């Protein structure tokens, strides 16, 4: 008797299971049976104290008074948009002004005319007019190229195409393989390389984050298979997050980039930010690794939690070797 009743009690969970399965199917149908980023929770500000150091450290302290920051914030009487809380925006503004920087707030107005002469533009919320902003028009008005996205909603590829460098400061909750810039870059790599090619992954400089999301090489390795990707110490870089932390520390300690020189490329295939390339000459151990394997390409990258086109540059091995040889002369 007891067994039967317990069994029936457990059997009630068929309703729970049905709720889950039906919800899964209906919601998947709602996004065309694709894993849509829109179904994940909204991006969240990583820091909600409004400290301005990310902006101020872009410039020399004695130069801050000559710099202008455009704050794209929501209209005062508007409902709550996603992004920074209004009091955090106020903190940020106060912080910037205390450093003698000039601050212009859009408060829901068209940001293009207000962007004239701005060195930095800061997106604080997902106000639709800001998300649809014409980046080319914005770039034409701005003096600088820096966009700080605190809401995580700007299309960084579109900004890049206009020659603006967008930095995402929001934590995304959708998985890394759904990143739209990653998809663009994968398509580019498929076009540029052949399936048999070997590619050596070379960090441009110090690995600046330990965010697990910054392991874009995992996604590239899977999505671009059978192309052969090579990495230094992959047994740690691809393992559990703890090993990955150790991988970051170990690479930064080894610091092969210190033996190399930055290289500016005259033309970039993909990013419009020609003067911000992750390219450099190769360290001796990188040359040895490339030459002892069937490698055709060097893929330079800057280690960031957000996938930005500007952080990636694919260069033929011969070109990288030529740069290194020329720098050594």
């Amino acid at each position: 008797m007891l067994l039967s009743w317990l069994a029936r009690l457990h059997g009630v969970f068929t309703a729970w299971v049905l709720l889950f399965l039906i919800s899964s199917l209906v919601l998947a149908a709602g996004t065309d049976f694709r894993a849509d980023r829109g179904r994940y929770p909204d991006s969240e500000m990583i820091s909600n104290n409004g400290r301005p150091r990310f902006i101020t450290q872009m410039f020399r302290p004695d130069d801050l008074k000559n710099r202008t920051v455009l704050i794209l914030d929501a209209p005062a009487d508007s409902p709550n948009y996603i992004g920074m809380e209004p009091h955090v925006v106020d903190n940020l503004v106060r912080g910037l002004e205390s450093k003698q920087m000039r601050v212009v707030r859009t408060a829901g107005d068209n940001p293009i005319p207000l962007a004239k002469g701005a060195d930095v533009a800061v997106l604080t919320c997902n106000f639709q007019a800001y998300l649809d902003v014409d980046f080319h028009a914005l770039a034409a008005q701005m003096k600088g190229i820096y966009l700080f996205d605190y809401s995580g909603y700007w299309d960084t590829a579109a900004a890049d195409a206009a020659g603006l460098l967008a930095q995402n400061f929001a934590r995304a909750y959708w998985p890394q393989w759904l990143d739209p810039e990653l998809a663009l870059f994968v398509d580019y790599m498929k076009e540029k390389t052949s399936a048999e090619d070997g590619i050596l992954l070379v960090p441009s400089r110090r690995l600046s984050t330990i965010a697990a999301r910054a392991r874009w090489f995992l996604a590239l390795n899977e999505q671009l298979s059978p192309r052969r990707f090579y990495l230094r110490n992959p047994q740690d870089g691809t393992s559990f997050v703890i090993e990955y932390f150790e991988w970051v520390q170990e690479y930064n300690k080894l610091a092969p980039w210190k033996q190399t020189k930055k290289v500016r490329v005259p033309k970039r295939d993909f990013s419009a930010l020609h003067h911000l390339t992750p390219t450099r000459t190769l360290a001796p151990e990188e040359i040895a690794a490339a030459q002892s394997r069937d490698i055709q390409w060097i893929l330079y990258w800057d280690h960031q939690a957000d996938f930005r086109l500007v952080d990636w540059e694919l260069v033929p091995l011969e070109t990288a070797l030529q740069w290194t040889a020329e720098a050594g002369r």
Partner: protein
Amino acid sequence: MSLVTGLLFLLCATLIGRALLPTRSILSRSRWEELGVAYLLGTGVVTVVITAGFVVGLSMNLLWWLPLLGAAAAFTLDAKRNTTIGELAEVPWTKPIGLLLAVLASAAFLATIALPLNEFDAIYHWAYRGKVLLYDGTPLNEAITGMVNDDGYGRLVTHPNYPFGIPILEAWTSHWGGWHARWVQLPLALWSACLPMAIAFGLRGYSTRAASYGAVLTAATPILYSYNFLEEGFDSISMAGLTSTLTLGGGADLAVMAMLGVACALFLRARQLDDRRTAICAGLALAGAVMMKNEGLALAGVCLLALLLTTILPPRRIRVAIPFAAVAVLGIAPWLGLRAQLPAIDENYSEQMTVENVMHYLGGGRELVEKAPIAMSGRQQVDLENAPARIGLVLTSFWEEFTDLRSWGFLWLLLIVALPVTRQRLADPEARWLTFVVLGGICLYFLILLVTPWNFPSLRDKGIPERLLVHLVGPILLMFGTALPKGES
């Protein structure tokens, strides 16, 4: 085209599995039980045979034909023995229950393929390997073996010594039409649908009521589909099918669960009928579980140890025990041969499972707080002196799981009431074997987590131990079925 190849696999595996099963006159079953058991058995056999093929140097291109040839041979054999295979038995459930099971099975199948591969493990552990098999034809390729080199540079592969069951199924599906992140999941979409059929099949020898109960209770267990559903309130329903709490999809845990479940069901029937052929099928299914995930190997060890313990008391049924164990070991051996050639960089359970380590943590050894992500990132000071004892954390997590209704329903309560504590129940050798398997499995996972070299709270965040304990759903519900009085409705 991959859709067609995927559907072709479902057919091939079912035909192969059906041909391996004894005739219906020996091993009675309904159509649905036969389909469920045959598919799981056929899938297990395909992964075992192809893994063996890799060891002897054959490539996926050649091995791809084996399931097709096997299915053709099975079809021919089936046509020949059509008159001797016997009549199908009645389904053990009523029509409404049958309809409910069909709805759940269909919805689970559709929910699996509703989205393309969308989870970390499914993509980086399994799909990558599937692509290696598809493009390079063998796991003994630089893409898997070339991770560790003297100069410090190597290929990228997560956990290189993971088994190749799931990748084999994905690569097989992609053979015609290329890789498709949705359709490669077709062979993986039936684990939750088939397990209730396998449990009903396993319990048929007890009573049709036990079989019916077994099927429904299995299908009603939430973790067969997802865990922690609506944990964050009803608003989080918008995330249904999207988060890492999904067990359906391209992961390997349900595969181990289904293979272990069908192995136990087959072995139960083999012992009851004293039938060697059924025992051989059970051994093959157990080897199939090993092909799906590293934990399958440890669970196979538990099953064989449980068998040894069961045979201490009569009835020993050595006639079925030996073929079961021998076939399982033979089926697993090629994987061990292959594994020995792959880099072992982490997840080396046997290395951690030393007496010294176990005693250290059982005696209150502290958690490795210095390996917590927040400590590793330097965002928090490590307080070694006040670090909690690992054993307390692991026990708490097990307790949280056993009482987590949204993931397990009343499964763990069913296990407790089904434990053979009376003399009459202890006299049932099948119940004894299942008890050893289930309790052995729980103890095994407890010990693994006790000695893990990782930070345990980080593993907990990633859905451990629930993703391990789900492997035991099959034997738990078989155990419950054996405890049901035959006349009870």
